[in-house]
């Protein structure tokens, strides 16, 4: 008890003021992020006003994109974006769900599972330009030889090749989230099913998948969001033609790849503005898909 006689608890106003300054600077930084997001959207909207005014809804369903003739119809790109993204989803879902079930239920532990889990996470971390590169030098020749065998024009590049690249790139999103969701299925429900004489496959089909289906769906949405917005890898292998693709083996363009390819040469106000409007549409679509995905996840995890 002697100790306290020698110590005086001193608190200066300076220390209290510091606390206030610290707190308000945190608030300020947080607010500046919010302001940035809104400023970002505002810029997109203002810059795309000229094209919105000049072209209206025709912008969305116009089939011709010819900047030289000042015609801006983005239907080919909308189609290209939807085709590549959904084709990529279709290709990647069997893989990502299998991986999710494998890691979430069959082999949640062990060196192989750890290795696989890290490998999947690595897929998400590789810069997309490397995928583009790999696609150009490995996938394109393979697709070309397939096209030759099928007796169609052997472009090699095109919608299908982009979808393949995208499919690989988006696997981690649905796989990791799916794995988390499958691991969250209560053990007592699985035991209930086992005790009734169900096999592992029956437990997965009748208990685990129904229970975690909204989580699996959210993973697919996040994958879709990623696929819609992916720019670099797609731009490198899609062929960049602004003509409506007649088959999935034709070259095409996506919204993101058009922006990346053409913004440097967009000389006229309307040209630049219509590229920005494309960006605005892409921005809104991916934001909406991400919000829905997050909503589904948060409802599931409650």
């Amino acid at each position: 008890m002697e100790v306290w006689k020698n110590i005086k608890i001193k608190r200066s106003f300076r220390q209290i003021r510091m606390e206030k300054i610290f707190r308000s600077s945190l608030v300020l930084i947080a607010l500046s992020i919010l302001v940035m997001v809104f400023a970002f959207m505002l810029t997109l909207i203002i810059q795309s006003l000229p094209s919105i005014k000049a072209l209206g809804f025709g912008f969305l369903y116009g089939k011709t994109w010819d900047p030289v003739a000042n015609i801006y119809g983005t239907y080919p790109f909308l189609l290209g974006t939807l085709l590549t993204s959904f084709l990529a989803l279709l290709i990647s879902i069997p893989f990502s769900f299998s991986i999710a079930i494998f890691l979430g239920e069959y082999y949640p532990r062990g060196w192989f599972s750890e290795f696989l889990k890290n490998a999947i996470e690595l897929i998400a971390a590789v810069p997309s330009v490397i995928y583009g590169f790999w696609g150009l030098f490995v996938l394109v020749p393979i697709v070309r030889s397939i096209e030759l065998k099928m007796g169609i024009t052997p472009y090699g590049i095109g919608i299908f090749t982009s979808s393949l690249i995208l499919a690989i790139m988006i696997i981690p999103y649905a796989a990791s989230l799916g794995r988390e969701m499958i691991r969250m299925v209560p053990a007592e429900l699985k035991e209930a099913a086992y005790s009734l004489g169900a096999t592992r496959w029956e437990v997965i089909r009748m208990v685990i998948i129904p229970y975690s289906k909204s989580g699996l769906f959210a993973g697919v949405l996040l994958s879709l969001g990623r696929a819609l917005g992916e720019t670099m890898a797609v731009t490198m292998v899609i062929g960049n033609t602004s003509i409506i693709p007649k088959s999935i083996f034709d070259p095409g363009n996506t919204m993101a790849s058009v922006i990346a390819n053409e913004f440097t040469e967009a000389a006229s106000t309307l040209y630049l503005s219509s590229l920005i409007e494309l960006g605005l549409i892409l921005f809104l679509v991916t934001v909406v898909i991400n919000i829905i995905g997050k909503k589904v996840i948060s409802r599931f995890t409650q």
Partner: protein
Amino acid sequence: MENTILKAVDFDAFFGDNQVVKKVNIDIPKNNVIAVMGPSGCGKTTFLRGINRMHELIEGATTKGKMLLNGENVYDLHPIFVRHKIGMVFQRPNPFPNLSIYDNVIAGYKLNGMKIAKPDRDVIVEQSLQKAALWNEVKDSLHKKGTFLSGGQQQRLCIARAIAMEPEILLLDEPTSALDPISTSSVEVLLHELKKNYTIIIVTHNMQQAGRVSDKTAFFYMGELIEFDKTKNMFTNPKDERTQNYITGRFS
């Protein structure tokens, strides 16, 4: 013995290197309620899960010895057939949350991919719920989700789900530990009815409950079966000192 339905012979159970059930030999008579009791960690739940081969679902869990159901070692059968013949009810009621009451009762058939005609299905559901003493309470809401029921009702639903498969033995792992006293007594009363058709093995850490519901009691301590006798004898005149210590509350 003529009416022995289940017989354990030198039965061991392990988690990795850790032996939790040691050389258990026991003859379970048919149409009886058998209570398995003992202090926490004595291996009683593990022993129970060894009977229908649920123990081996845990990673690194193994067993040795024999578990004879009607003279046939369950460890020579496929676990799926074993679990058809030996039903199980767990500590916490676990009806399938995405299924209705009706679908929960026939979940065993659905899970096993057995197709049954609607009229037969209706009969199975009604009779199972009646046997589980739940029919009168739920007959008007069969297509509501099972998770809307009270804890005791959910547990009886789980019993109905287990007996819908027409098992020979029903294993109950502390089935009332998550229930309030009224729900507990509703389940206990039910056990008396059920033993007409099934052999029941119930793990409990509640001695009063063992006294109320069981014909015979097995006392486990440190993984060993210490004593197995008529419940009445066990409580009035235990042969082993450890049983006596447990019953008189000298350790828990």
